[in-house]
Every structure is written in C-alpha cells, then in structure tokens.
C-alpha cells in the first residue's frame, strides 16, 4: 500500500481499478511481468515486432502503388525502425533486466529516442512523429484487443495520468470514470475546475507517482483530503468503503436543503448563485436551489478547436443557459484567457515572458475586436431571452472599461441596424481581481453596474504568487491580511456607491470563509454548484452578529496561517463535518 498526497480539487471518494495514461494520453499497460514469464514475453515482443513490420511494409506497398514510391518510402523507413536490431536489443534488455512488460519496455525505449531527437535540433525533431507512429503500431500488436482508450471505456475505472488536457477532462464520462488523479496541475488549473464541474472526485499535483502503479491495480481517490491510495490493504479499503457510503449519505442530506432559503439564524438573506463552465451545469445549479448564475465562464468555447467559435456557437450555449435558468439572472463573463491558449492565428508574435502580466482576458479582446464583437453579439442576442449581465474580466484601468463599454455600444448599433432584439439596458459589470481595481473602486463604481470579486486572481496579483507553482504555493492564501484589507476596502467602497457586489472566487465556496465574508458585509456569493448546499448549510447555522465578531478578530491577526487556523476553528464549532 502506498499513500500519495496531492491537491484536492473535487470532493468525494471513489474506489476502483486504475487506468494509467502517460504524457501523450496513451494508456500505459501493466509495467511488470513475473520473472519466469520473461522468455515468453520476449517471444511475444518478437511476434508483435514481426507483425508490426509486415503491416508497415504492406502500407509502404499500398501507398507506393497509389501515390508513388516517395510517399510509400516513409513506411519503408518505419518498417526498418521496427525491425532494427539495436532497438530490439534495447527493448529486450529492459524486459530481461527489469522484468518490464514488452509494452512498457517498448514505450520506455522509444520515448528515450524521442528525447534524443527533441534535443538535437529541428531536423531531428521531425522524427518524433515517426517514433510515435512506430510506437503506436508496435503497441497495437502487443496489446491486441486489450487496448482501451479514454473515449472507448466499457467498465468503470479510476484514471491516473501525468496530466489531462481540459478537453480530455471534459470528455470524461462520469459514469465510467469514477475519479481521476494527475501528477501535474494545481487547484486553479482548468482541469481542476472541470473536475468540479463534472462532479467526480479528483486530486491533482501529486508529483511523480505513475511508475509505482500498474493498470488494473486497485486505487482509492480521496477528493476530500487530497489523497491517493495505491493498492490499499484490506483495512484501508474497508474504511474507505465506509467513507464512500457516508459521503453519499451526507450529500443526500444536503439535497434536502434545496428549497430552504439561505438565511442566517438572525434573519439576514444571503444570495447564493452558481459558477458554471458548461451549459449543462445550469441544471446542476437549479437542482441545488441557486438563485441565478453568478459567473458563467465562457473559455471552454475557445479551447477545443483550431478556430475561434462562431457567433452562433456562442449564442447556442448562452441560450441554453438562459432558458434553463428560466428568468433567474445569468452573468456571462467575456473571454478570460491568455493569448497562448487561443487558436493559432491569435497567438502573440513573441512568446510572453510573463503571460499572467501579459496580453490576456479583456486586454486580448480589446486588441482582437473581431473576436470580442463576435462574443458580445451573441451575449446581447441572448439578453433578449432572459436577464443577462455582461462581466468583463481582469479590468485594471478605467480606460479599459470605458473602451469595452464603447465596443458594446458599437455592437448594439449593429444589432439595431439589423433589427435583432436585445436588452438595451443590459448591466455591465467587472471582475475585481487586480489590486488597482480595488484601489480605484470608487471611480469604477461610476462606470460599472456591478462588481464581482475574483479572489483567485486578486490573491495572485496582490501577493505575487502563482498558486500552481509548488515551490511558492504555500504563500497563496485568501486569509492573508493584505488580501483581507483589500476586500474590506472594496466592500466599503461598494457600499458607499450602492454597487451590487458578489464574491465568485474559490474563497466563496470554502466553508471556513463564510463567517468572515458575511461578517465583512458580503451578501452575495457565487460558488461551484456542488458547494451551494454546503454554503447554504453554513449560512443557515450562523448569526450576522457572530460573523461580525469573527471578522473583527481576524482583522487583528497579522499572518495568513494564524488567520486560517482561527477561521477553521470557528467553522468547525458550527459544522464539524464540513471542515477538514
């Protein structure tokens, strides 16, 4: 049994057989063979190599006949690679010396070549594709029918991977993928956010661990505590089976809260809204009693294609959400990505040295007006179907906000000319996630219709910490006194100007901060759908008067660690089962 500690990004517990994926998304099969099986495994390798070579030769002939010798020749080269005696010797050595399976040994040897080619200049790097092709061909013959891909699962698995791209994560079938864990990634990575959206337990940022597990081994993912247990012993397994059961029970009990108001014991109403990523999640929000969508992230529309999404693609997604929410407000945030994440033709001319301080989010939109206007047209069209608000991310100066509003006015004019309906009085608000926006909140209040506090970025930009960087992640804390003072400043300013203010960062979904936020004066929280019942339960268990006391006390603490410990203690007094 081996226990690995990572970052918990999506709660729950799942137990099941491991499916191990490597960096390129190939499934890595079992790693080790019994020592007495080495001879037969080497034979199996030879057999697969022969078949793979024959297949490549057949391909060569087919292509040469069809298109000419120069096209077929590349498969001739592949056949030679597969039949290469040096390659074979290297693979066999790994099988004999380390009892590796032929599959694993083949991957290891070929990946070593990939590394060499990548390191020896652009001409050699072109070979990398050939090597992957050869690897796939050999593995196909080794694995035969056993080969299973993420997209063709037939039975439930726990996915373990070096990393999952957002689109791989989004493609996971929650019915068959019970949970996942990755070596890379941090709490605010896109993959982590998607895991929460899919509502499957997930742990990321575990560091290297895939070499310690074979496909098919039993794994436990503890998404509550950020643990992964490899090959658990009977006692641990029994404990977790019990936990799994209990967790389900607890979730069901939260479900009962759905139709009760989010109201403190002393009668103060707190609006609870949902943060969503996909249109389908609007249903999740309703099922948990959300009063609206406080943050609809639209980045997903941009991630999965070679081209920017069309106006109709935007519109279809927004329409679905607005119609599902049936009269409840929906805040659509415009594109919030760095240029590096966008389709090719929008890439920055030079690689940015500091992407987080670079051309991203609203700045990017203001530079690529076509892209921006396409999205705005769709948002405005959706505003004809129900209450929609526009929210601009990463606003750092007043000029940016004025510019963005001017573009909206342009688009409105366009729509008018074409006779397309939209809500003329659509509210336009901003994310407050850069310290400059807090400092100038009084001025922003005169131009924006609402504020939404994005705590993740505000913390990052205030403390100069990248939370995904393991070496400094411990400095990242919502309870840092500097961050809390900024939040207090913002609330005071919003109150002075009667500005609606909500909190939509992760801080709002963490039950240890609910008392503090309410004490500071926040009355509107937007959280991931699965956190709505939890936060509602906290709200219904506290008094504003107590929250104010807690808040006063926290403001006297001069460091994040003590503040978190204090807040955790206070939250535990109220709802022990919610606070780890």
């Amino acid at each position, binding site marked *: 049994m081996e226990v690995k500690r990572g970052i918990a990004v999506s709660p729950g517990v799942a137990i099941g057989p491991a499916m191990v994926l490597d960096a390129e998304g190939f499934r890595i099969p079992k790693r080790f063979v019994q020592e007495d099986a080495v001879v037969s495994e080497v034979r199996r390798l030879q057999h697969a190599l022969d078949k793979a070579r024959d297949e490549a030769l057949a391909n060569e002939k087919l292509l*040469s006949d069809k*298109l*000419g*010798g*120069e096209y077929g*020749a*590349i498969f*001739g*080269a*592949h056949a*030679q*690679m597969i039949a*290469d*005696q*040096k*390659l074979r010797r290297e693979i066999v050595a790994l099988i004999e010396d380390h009892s590796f399976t032929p599959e694993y040994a083949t991957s290891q040897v070929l990946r070593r*070549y990939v590394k*060499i*080619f990548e390191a*020896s*200049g652009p*001409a*050699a790097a*072109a*070979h990398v594709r*050939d090597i992957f092709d050869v690897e796939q061909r050999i593995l196909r013959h080794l694995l035969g029918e056993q080969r299973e891909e993420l997209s063709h699962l037939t039975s439930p698995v726990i996915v373990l991977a070096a990393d999952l791209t957002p689109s791989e994560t989004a493609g996971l079938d929650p019915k068959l993928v019970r949970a996942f864990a990755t070596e890379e990634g941090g709490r605010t990575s896109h993959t982590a956010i998607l895991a929460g959206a899919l509502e499957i337990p997930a742990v990321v940022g575990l560091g290297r661990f895939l070499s310690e597990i074979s496909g098919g081994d039993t794994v436990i993912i503890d998404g509550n505590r950020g643990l992964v247990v490899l090959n658990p012993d009977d006692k641990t397994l029994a404990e977790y089976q019990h936990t799994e059961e209990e967790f389900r029970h607890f979730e069901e009990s939260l479900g009962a809260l759905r139709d009760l108001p989010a109201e403190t014991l002393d009668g103060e109403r707190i609006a609870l809204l949902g943060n969503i990523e996909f249109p389908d999640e609007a249903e999740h929000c309703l099922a948990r009693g959300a009063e609206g969508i406080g943050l609809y992230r639209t980045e997903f529309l941009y991630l999965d294609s070679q081209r920017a999404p069309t106006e109709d693609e935007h519109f279809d997604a927004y329409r679905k959400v607005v119609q599902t929410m049936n009269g409840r407000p929906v805040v659509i945030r415009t594109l919030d990505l760095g240029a590096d994440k966008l389709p090719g033709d929008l890439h920055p001319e030079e690689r940015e040295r500091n992407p987080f301080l670079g051309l991203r989010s609203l700045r990017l939109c203001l530079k690529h007006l076509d892209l921006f206007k396409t999205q705005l047209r769709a948002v405005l069209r959706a505003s004809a179907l129900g209450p929609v608000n526009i929210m601009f991310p990463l606003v750092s100066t007043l000029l940016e906000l004025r510019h963005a509003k001017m573009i909206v006015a342009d688009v409105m004019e366009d729509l008018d000319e074409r006779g397309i309906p939209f809500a003329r009085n659509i509210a336009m608000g901003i994310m407050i996630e850069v310290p400059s926006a807090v400092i100038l909140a009084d001025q922003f209040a005169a131009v924006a219709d609402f504020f939404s506090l994005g705590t993740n970025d505000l913390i990052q930009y205030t403390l100069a910490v990248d939370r995904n960087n393991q070496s400094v992640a411990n400095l990242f804390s919502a309870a840092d006194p500097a961050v809390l003072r900024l939040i207090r400043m913002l609330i005071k300013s919003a109150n002075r100007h009667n500005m609606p203010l909500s909190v939509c960062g992760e801080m709002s979904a963490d039950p240890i901060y609910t008392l503090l936020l309410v004490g500071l004066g926040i009355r509107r929280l937007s959280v991931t759908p699965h956190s709505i019942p939890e936060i509602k339960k906290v709200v219904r268990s506290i008094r504003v008067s107590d929250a104010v006391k807690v808040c006063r006390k926290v403001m006297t603490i001069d460091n994040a660690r003590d503040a978190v410990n204090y807040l955790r203690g206070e939250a535990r007094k109220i709802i022990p089962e919610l606070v780890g």
Partner: protein
Amino acid sequence: MDDDLVRRQLCVTNPEGLHARPAAKLVQLANQFQCEITLVRGSQRHDAKSIMDLMTLAAEQGSKLLLEARGCDAHVAADAIEKLFVEGLGDLDANPDDA
C-alpha cells in the same frame, strides 16, 4: 584477413539531411554487406545498419562524416555507400514515373 579497414570522407548533400527516408535507404544498402559499417562524426560512432542509430546522428545538409567499413567486403561496401551519398541518398532524384 577479414580485417580490411576502409575509410572514406562523406558529405550529406541532400537538402533535408539524413532524415528517416534517406537513412532507411542507407541501412537497406549497408545490410547487404557482411562488414561492419560505421559512420563517425567527432567522437560519435553510429552503426550504419541501424536506422535508429543513424537517426540519432541527426546529420544535416553539409555534414561531414567519416565512413569506416571493416570486414571482408569492406571495399565494395565503401564504394557503394559513397556512391549513394554522392547521389544524394535517393532524395535528389525523386522519380517522376512514380508520381
């Protein structure tokens, strides 16, 4: 007796260097001979009968290589390989009849 050692200076002339397809041609030819055939660049020695080994050589156009053939048919082998290099490793004369 079998230990004839033949050395030749070679130059990679084809524009894309010794990439997969020309390497395959070279390996195919080298494997028709008994002798050991090695391509040397600096301190690196690469087996001309192994395509994987040749590809790691990453020889670009204009690279100078030393051919060493050792064995009973070393002379014939060296001649044939030199000829292949001079002809651009089959890359220069893409056969129009094939297209």
